[in-house]
């Protein structure tokens, strides 16, 4: 199971969406999420859906990958849907015993489910088209104003980069440690939840000690190479806005305008 997990959902492709500046993508995603809570009616959803389908098409990521992100919460969606259909009061459309379906219920259920789906799909697109490292760079850059307030953005970003780099290593370690303890009879699969939970200590301790050992060694290595912190540090691959980012920004602005107009006029 552990072997088959790839870090994140990044789907490598050559598309304009993939090449966009991560800062732009982050901001647009936030705007998109906000827009989902502004729209109230059918036409609004049409605009959002159209927009997101356009982006999916432009990203050249196979739709089934995008839909994969929905799998874990399919149950929730179905559940919420059912609950809203049956539990909302209003004009009854259909009855069977004590189950009744109302028009309002149908409406609410449908839109809540739709909103959830659009939410997930939209944010999946962000992680599908942006490498984790680039995301980190983007976040660090966007948070530069916070630096003035004393937030150590450079250190936090460095931490994130290093943690990201070591996660595959740590995952392998976890796997190895699990197997080694299993070979000594540790059992993580059977028993009450409390038993299984206690069985995790033989994994956590070595993992922890190992990770901290790596941190010590890495600190020494960095110091030996005269790492002095973030002051005046430059990047090898600095983020730069390109023309396509400007174009994408215009398109997004257009989208926002459409949403707002729809809300006001309809």
């Amino acid at each position: 199971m552990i072997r088959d997990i790839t870090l994140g959902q990044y789907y490598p492709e050559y598309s304009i969406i993939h090449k966009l500046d991560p800062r732009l993508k982050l901001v647009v995603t936030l705007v998109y999420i906000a827009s989902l809570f502004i729209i109230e009616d059918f036409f609004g959803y049409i605009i959002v859906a159209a927009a997101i389908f356009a982006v999916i098409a432009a990203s050249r990521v196979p739709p089934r990958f995008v839909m994969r992100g929905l799998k874990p919460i399919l149950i929730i969606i179905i559940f919420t849907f059912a609950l809203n259909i049956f539990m909302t009061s209003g004009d009854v459309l259909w009855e069977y015993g004590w189950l009744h379906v109302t028009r309002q219920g149908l409406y609410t259920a449908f839109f809540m489910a739709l909103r959830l789906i659009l939410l997930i799909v939209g944010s999946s697109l962000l992680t599908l088209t942006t490498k984790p490292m680039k995301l980190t760079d983007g976040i660090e850059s966007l948070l530069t104003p916070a630096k003035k307030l004393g937030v150590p953005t450079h250190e936090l970003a460095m931490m994130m980069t290093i943690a990201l780099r070591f996660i595959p290593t740590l995952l392998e370690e976890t796997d190895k440690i699990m197997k080694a303890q299993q070979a000594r009879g540790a059992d993580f699969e059977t028993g009450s939840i409390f038993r299984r939970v206690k069985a995790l200590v033989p994994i956590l301790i070595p993992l922890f000690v190992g990770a901290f050992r790596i941190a010590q060694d890495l600190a020494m290595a960095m110091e030996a190479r005269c790492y002095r912190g973030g002051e005046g540090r430059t990047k090898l691959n600095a983020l730069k806005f390109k023309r396509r980012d400007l174009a994408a920004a215009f398109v997004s602005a257009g989208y926002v305008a459409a949403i707002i107009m729809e809300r006001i006029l309809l």
Partner: protein
Amino acid sequence: MTIRVEHLTHTYNKGLAYETKAVDDVSFEVADGEFIGVVGHTGSGKSTLIQHLNGILKPDAGRIWIGDIDITAKGVKMHEIRKRVGMSFQYPEYQLFEETVYKDIAFGPRNLGLADDEIDERVREAMSLVNLKFDEMAERSPFELSGGQKRRAAIAGVIAMRPEVLILDEPTAGLDPKAHADILSMINSVRERMGGIVILVSHNMDDIAATTSRVFVMDTGRLVRAGAPAEVFSDAGYMRGVGLGLPQATEMAAMLGLDGEPGAGVGAAAGETAPGTILDMDGLVDAIVSARIARGPDAIDGTPRGEEDRNGATRDEKGVGE
């Protein structure tokens, strides 16, 4: 206790475009008390293979019998397998976690559900087998130990389970020469004391040659050779072809042209067929001495094949002069 493996296959990423057979149709038998060596280039599937023997991995095809239990059958309790087959992974010291050495070694036996006094006996026995002094070490934190001590403590943790099959994956990796030798002799004394099958996975051909009675060679998931060390290491070309080296003495003997030729072996008189491949330094020394006795002081001067010796004569194919 015997092991029987039939047509074992393990596929990674099954069904996807990049599926690979880590273990491809491997079959073999191991008799009671054998000391088996498993060698293979990185990625040849040896680690994957041995992880099937104690039930950590399940095969996609094939069956495995440990003793008379088919561990690949449905409903087999892991507990039963782990009681019989003990395994020590690479760099086992990274699995140490308990507060004291005693408690860490006792972890295995405790998981087997043994009584406290039985556990105590086993911990003491295991510690003495790995040469860790009970009175000094038992109550110390495992993290305070030296690298070699940690490794021995980790292996003790497996030995304390008294497995009938002991599998060791690179037990000497990363150790200094003394610790390395200590571990090897430890393995031998454990084997003497506990009987049972020992399987050693290693990149170190000298260790394999010195300790094992049969060698399995893995290459890209297939078991390509299985035989006595002398047999397996005699085919230098093949071994290099599958990305493996030879014991140092064997390499040296090949370079000097002493490999298995008439009169080159220990005690062989001129004209008799040699007993075969040289596997260790003692054998090499004997072979050199015999060759010099048989053919005079110039027989070997250390010139590699194909190059000119101090007399200007080029060493021929055999490397050994007149």
